[in-house]
């Protein structure tokens, strides 16, 4: 089976770099499965887990928010404001963030930045989701 290289980059560091058989990501238009030799593509990503299928049925899940994906030849690059491997996520903090965001959304303050709270909630849910199955 042919392979492709995958790289996940944030402003702070390169989170993951390696070979993969398939990458599954949620683009703004819907889920995308990228196999080797995909045509060049650029798309923004939703706040969602990105699944990277590795050699021998192993799967790596990365929590990606605020990112986009570039596919070029046999190289997939995911550029994101934050990207975390499940092991790097602080579950307690994510839980707190979730509660905080939920509280904010329920209060419905007129001057509150609803979009921001919504995003914060999405991020927290994503982190919890990704850590659930390790």
């Amino acid at each position, binding site marked *: 089976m042919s392979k492709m290289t995958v790289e996940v*980059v*944030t*402003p*702070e*560091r*390169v989170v993951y770099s390696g070979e993969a058989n398939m990458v599954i990501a949620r*683009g*703004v*238009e819907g889920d*995308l499965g990228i196999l080797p030799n995909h*045509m*060049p*593509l*650029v*798309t*923004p990503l939703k706040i969602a887990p990105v699944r990277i299928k590795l050699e021998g049925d192993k799967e790596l899940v990365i929590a990606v928010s*605020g990112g*986009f994906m*570039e596919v*070029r030849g046999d190289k997939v*690059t995911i*550029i994101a*404001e*934050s990207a975390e491997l499940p092991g790097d996520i602080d579950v307690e903090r994510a839980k707190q963030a979730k509660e905080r965001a939920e509280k904010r959304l329920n209060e419905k303050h007129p001057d509150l930045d609803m979009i921001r709270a919504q995003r914060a909630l999405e991020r927290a849910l994503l982190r919890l989701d990704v850590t659930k199955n390790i």
Partner: protein
Amino acid sequence: MAKGIRELRRRIKSVKNTRQITKAMKMVAAAKLRRAQETAEAARPYARKIQEVISSIASGTTNVKHPMLQSRPVKKTGYIVITSDRGLAGGYNANMIRKVITTIAEKHKSQDEYTIFVIGRKGRDYFRKRNYPVIQEIIGLPESPTFADVKKISSAAVQLFAEEKIDELYICYNEFQSAISQVPTITRLLPLDAVAGEASDRKVNYEYEPSAEEVLAVLLPKYAETIVYSSVLDSKASFYGAQMTAMGNATDNATDMIGRYTLQYNRARQAAITQEISEIVAGANAQA
């Protein structure tokens, strides 16, 4: 005479203490400089990638229109000024602030024409005290700031531009050239100059989902924020460079001073001894 000697001895001791501190600070700054440079280096792939994609969109598709790429008549200008939280870094903050206020004085007649975003306690205190229109500030950035730390200012600035509340955005920071040379620079961030050019040799025809325009609309603000972030990292490195130099100089000066005082001290001591001898001799002579 004896008092002069004691005074000198005390000074020598005090300068020695100072030298010890400046020497330690220099070494700490050197270590932190290295780390800051590494962080700045680590941020580069991200910025490069975004730039690559943007320029390939810009070169691949003609007439792409986005407000962030177009100049419009300037009614109000935004400045992001990056300073440090702490001093003891020579002219690091003073040079930056001076450059900013001369630019502002040249370009604007009234305070309605510009607004300032400031990072760092030194800059914040300065602009606040003098009643400059500071709209947002970040102080107490950690040693190696994360993207999220800086995002508050970068996205606010970019958003103000998108809402046409400001028509230009400048970023003012100390550009890191080497450990001994940092240059205060003011560059225009928005509207973005054509980012095209560099990547043209390896042009790829991408498929854009949902469309080139929409991808661009997501990427351009990100790009602007990335530039702010990397400027912050750059000026962090500059800060430690400046501090290292300043503390190095201070240590050298202290060494000089100790040398001078020691010379004076020895002279005074010798003079006192000479005087004492001549007094004894004079006394002995008088007795005889």
